[in-house]
C-alpha cells in the first residue's frame, strides 16, 4: 500500500493559531477579549466590535452536526482507500455558533443526522499535523454539557 498521507494545512496563513492548537489536540477559535464574541474563521479584528484584542480560546460545549456531504470520488491519492468518506460541518452553539469543517466518521450505509451531537477525535496529516475529526454519538443525551472540546 502506498504511504500517501492526507494533505494538511500550511502554516503560512492567518489560521496558523488554529493549527498550532490542534498540535496540542485542542480545538480553538478566536474570541474577542473586548466583547467576548467568538468568530471563525480567524480575521484580524472582531467582526462585532472591531477590537483587535483577540485570543485563541478552546471551544466549549457540545457540538452538533450542521450539515455534511459524502464524497464518492477520490480526488487525492490519500483518500483512495477510504472513499466514500464524509465531511461534516459541526456547530458549537455555546461559542456563538462557531462551525468547524472536518472529516466525519459515519457508517456508509446510512445518512448522518443533521442535529446529531458529535464528538471530537484526531487524525493525522502526512506531515504529522493533527487534524480534527468528528463522529456522531450513537447514544442521545439531552443535556448540553459545558466542557472543553479537547476530549
Amino acid at each position, binding site marked *: 500500500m502506498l504511504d500517501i498521507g492526507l494533505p494538511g494545512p500550511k502554516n503560512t496563513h492567518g489560521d496558523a493559531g488554529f493549527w498550532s492548537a490542534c498540535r496540542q489536540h485542542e480545538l480553538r477559535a478566536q474570541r474577542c477579549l473586548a466583547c467576548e464574541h467568538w468568530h471563525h474563521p480567524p480575521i484580524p479584528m472582531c467582526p462585532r466590535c472591531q477590537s483587535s484584542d483577540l485570543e485563541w480560546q478552546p471551544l466549549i460545549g457540545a457540538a452538533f452536526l450542521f450539515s455534511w*456531504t459524502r*464524497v*464518492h470520488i477520490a480526488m487525492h491519492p490519500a483518500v483512495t482507500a477510504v472513499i466514500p468518506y464524509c465531511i461534516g460541518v459541526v456547530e458549537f452553539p455555546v461559542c456563538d455558533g462557531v462551525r468547524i469543517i472536518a472529516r466525519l466518521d459515519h457508517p456508509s450505509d446510512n445518512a448522518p443526522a443533521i442535529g446529531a451531537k458529535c464528538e471530537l477525535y484526531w487524525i493525522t496529516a502526512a506531515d504529522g499535523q493533527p487534524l480534527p475529526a468528528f463522529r456522531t454519538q450513537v447514544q442521545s443525551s439531552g443535556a448540553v454539557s459545558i466542557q472543553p472540546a479537547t476530549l
Partner: protein
Amino acid sequence: MGKRGAVIVGIGQTEYRRRGGWSPASELELAARAIMDAANDAGVNLRAVDGVCSYANDMPGEDAYGAALLQVALGLPMLRHSSFVWCAGGGGACAALAHAVAAVEAGHANVVAVVRSVCQNPDARYGQFSDRRQFFNLVMPAGAYAPAHLFAIWMRRHMHEFGTTEHDLAQVAINARLNANRNPKALFNSKLLSEEDYFGSRMVADPFRLFDCCIESDGAAAILVTTRERAMDMRARPVEVLAVGQGSSGGWGAGPLGSHNMPRHSYTTGNFGVFADELFARAGVGRDDVDVAQIYDAFTGMVLIGLEDFGFCDRGESGAFVRAGNIGFPYGSLPVNTSGGHLSEAYVHGLNLLIEGVRQMRGSSTSQVENAQVSFVASCPGLSPSSAALLGRS
C-alpha cells in the same frame, strides 16, 4: 437613459470544447478571439475597443490574460479602462458588466469588452484536488478538495431545512439538457438526459451526482458595451441594461468555499440579501415582468437557491417551483438557462449565461421565449459578492 446610457452592442464566443480541447491555445488567445467575435457581431472596428473588464481569473498563472496582454494581442491603439472584480470567482460575471457600464456612462472609455476565458489544463481543474490555499487552508484538511464538496454541504442543509429533494435537483439538470439539445453550440447538444440517466449517474459528493455538476470545458466569451449614441452607428440592435450590480449580505466571507461560518439565518441563501429587491427597484420592473432567466449553475442546487433569492418563488419553495414545470421551455412561467447553462452548454464562469440573456433580448436564442422583453441573469449564488443583471429589449 440619455445618449450616454450604456447598452450591449456585441456578443462573442469561441467554440466551446471539452477540457483540453483547445490545447495548446492559451486563455489569452481564446479571450482575444472572443473579443474579436464580439466586435464583429457589433459591426465595430476592433481598434475602437478601449476598455477591458474581467473577473475570476483564478487558476494558477493568474496573469494568464490581463488587460495589458489583450491590448497587445488585439493591437488596440488606446486602452482607457481596465478593471477586475475583486475576489468573487464566478460571482463576478455580471459585476464585470457593471464595471463596463459604469466606465462607459462616466465617459472613461468608449467601447468596453467584458471577457472571460477558461482553459482547464491537467494541473488546474476546478473538479479536482487543488493545492490553492487562499480559501482552502482551513477546509482542505477536512477532505474538501473541490467546490463540489463544499457546495454539496450547503445544498444538503437546504434539503434538511426545506425538504428539497434529489428529484428537484434532477429537474434542474434535465431542464438544462433539454435546452442544450436545441443549442448546436452546446457541448451536450446531442446527448439526451432522462431522469433514469440522472439517477444512474455516479455520486460525486452527496447530494450531487455527476449530472448535478457543470461540464469541464474550455472556451471564452465576451460582451461589448458602449453608449447609446455610439451604438447607433453599429450593426447590432442594442440590448438595454435595465440594472446591474453586486450584492453580498453580511458575514459571508468565503461562504461555502470557506469554513461555512455564514450567519445561520442566511446560510441556505445565495447571499444576495437585499440586493435582489434593490436590483428590481433600480430596473423599475417586477418579478412578473421577467420573461426568461439565466441562473449560474456550477451545480444544480444553485439554480434552486437563486430562484428563491431573487423572489421568483418563496424561500424554501424552489423545489415545488421546478416540480410544477415553471422553468421549462417553452411552456414554463420562467424558462431558465435556455442555452443549456454550465451543466450542458459549457462552463465559461457565467459569461456564457450573460450572452444567452442578451440573445433572448435580441430574439436569437435557440430556445427563444416568444416576445421576451425582460431577461434576468444571476452570477454564482453563494459567493461574496456575487452579481446579477436585468436586461431589456430595446
